[in-house]
């Protein structure tokens, strides 16, 4: 496989940016979560890419990836539960309408 490391990094950078864009500009809370998941995945992809390119014989990066996936799963579970709870409160999932954090 003769793909330079840069291509993979570029890919994950773009994915990260796409996720960020979704998380920052869409109104729906679920899409925001989707954006965050995309960012997570881009980051995990980076871990695995570096593992493959540089530390092929060491399981550290692999461990990190597995833990990151677990954390992402937990995060999305709690996040979606929160979305449902918030929906019950506001009858809406638009993040623009959640302004009770205002000081």
């Amino acid at each position, binding site marked *: 496989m003769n793909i330079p490391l840069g291509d993979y990094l570029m890919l994950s950078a773009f994915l990260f940016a796409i996720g960020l864009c979704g*998380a*920052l500009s869409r109104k729906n809370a679920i899409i925001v979560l989707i954006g965050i998941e995309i960012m997570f995945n881009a980051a995990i992809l980076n871990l695995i890419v570096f593992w493959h390119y540089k530390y092929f014989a060491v399981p550290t990066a692999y461990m990190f990836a597995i833990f990151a996936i677990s954390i992402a799963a937990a995060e999305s579970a709690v996040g979606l539960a929160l979305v449902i709870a918030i929906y019950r409160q506001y009858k809406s999932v638009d*993040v*623009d309408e*959640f*302004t*009770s*954090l205002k*000081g």
Partner: protein
Amino acid sequence: MEHGEYLQHLARQQWLIPFFPLMAAAIQSLMKRPSRKASGALTIIAMGLSCIFALRAFFATIGGGGQHHEIERAIFNFTWFKFGTTSLGLGFILDPLAEGMAVMVAFVGFWIFVNATGYMADDENFTRFFCFLSLFAASMLGLVVSNNLLLLYMCWELVGLCSYLLIGFWYFKPAAAAAMKKAFITTRIGDVGFLLGIVMLYWKTGTLNLYTHDTLHPGALEQVSALALRNGWWGLSAASTIAFLLFIGAMGKSAQFPLHVWLPDAMEGPTPVSALIHAATMVAAGVFMVGRMYPLFTAEAGSWVLDFVMWVGCITAVFSATIAVAQFDIKRVLAYSTCSQLGFMVMALGAGSVVAGQFHLLTHAFFKALLFLGSGCVIIGTHHEQDMRKMGGLRKYMPITFWCYLIGMLALCGVPPFAGFFSKDEILLSTFHRNKYAWGLATFAAFLTAFYMTRQMFMVFAGKWRGGENDHGHDKHGKHDDHEHGHHGGEPHEVTWNMWLPIAVLSLFAIGLGFFGHKYGEYLGVEGAESVEGKAVVMGASLAVVALGLLLGWAVYGRKTMEHATDEDPLSAALGSLFTFLNRKWYIDELYDVTIIRFTATCGMFFRLVDKSVVDGILHAIAWTAWGISQVFRWIGDEFFINGGFDAGCESVRWEGEEFSKLENGRIQNYFRVLSLGAAILLLIYFFT
């Protein structure tokens, strides 16, 4: 099997000693439908098994040791978990110190549990109680057999937790709820010191194992000579500093002078708990820990730590004894007496005699458990009456309890053939060698001990039954149990066999145990040749003061017993306001109220002031700066606003505030955006550098 190997084999099985009560607690906590019989039986059987294992180990340590005064110590360490390259170990130890203690805890605990089945027979939460009791015993046994400060600390905290749970067992009583909090918080103050000591020990030695028998990786206590050469804090060597910090923990647990306040309040718990706390578990933990870590205390010659320990003990001994003289609650007298006796033990440790301290710990455990259980019997026999003024004449009604109680009392006073005499004598002797003033004070405390115990005996057992007089309006003091039974004032009765049997058994030990003092010293292998010098003086003095105390007690309370519960205490008449002073426990709680609690409140106020002036000041300064900047912009942009003068200035501040507050609009996405903008800026910086 060769003896050493056998010990090694036993050390491997040390974990079994705390294991059984722990399992009993676990099973009881998981039982679906609580059953009194099953729960009581389970607890007692588990404790019995622990006791058997402890005895087995105990006899093994007796068997080999003693010839060369060399301590037989078998250890078993293992790695708990690894984190990267650092690993944390745990370990168990088998040596005379641990085994003597373990046998005592298991044995006394066993009989306390038997008694508790009677005492708590009517309680709704019987199984919860026994679950906690088992956990309490398990954690104490774990503390005793641990060869690792981490494990010791965990058990230590568990002991604290259990005492919290048990003192507040009747949590619906406000006094009990307050007492449980007090006990927990007070001991926690000490625990901070303990934790600091542990951290420092780990920092200085790199291990928390006490012994490893491995020259490559020596345990903490095998490095004391090195530690004594390193510098610590407060002009002490590292060893002494750690010892001092650890001793603060022991002060909290063993209720030494400034931190003793929780112990008397702990009387709010059920009486078996008091017996357990006072005799076998909680307070013994502190003294035991000092004994366990003793090499640290003696590592540096001539440090003031040992003196500190001794004086703390001495002050506690005298101080608590004086308070005990003026109490009316039967359990409170015993509680202050425990405080005082703990003072004796700590004093012995400070005076350099581990044997005396530990031996007194053992004997005291037996007769204090006996006394507490006896008082429990009295309380049950008199239908939950705790006020001694409303008792009296119980000798007729409760003969077995009376005789056992008498033995316990004589042992506590230090009357010759009984256990307390020997152990107390050793303490006094060692103190005599160390410091004559401390010895004098301690002898005075011994006198007071004899006096207040005599007082208690006469008030409770002599004279005529005063409980029938129903005078609730008189004094609410000491009637915390009346939620249980409404029928105050019924005739007292003897308790059931499962309550008197334990005290009968314990009283045998209270008589006989003292003769083994010399053997115990050999067994521990710490003491060298026994010093005879001054022995006559010390023994004579202590005998004299005990006799004096007994006589005086008889003179004040025995010649003419109280007629009515409302009668004034004869001593109160003689001492006047001093008696009130003692009765109110030297106003220590009040003192804490006006000093520490007031101080904390003041601190709070002070910080609020700081918040108001400094923090708000900074905020105002920022606001004014922003205003200034906006003014500058205004100058450049438009002359007109300057002409607007002060009004425009205010207006611009408001405008700035509005602009800034738009940033803080509560929309998460906005925060997120600003965050990622920050990240972008960081990336930019990274790119251009």
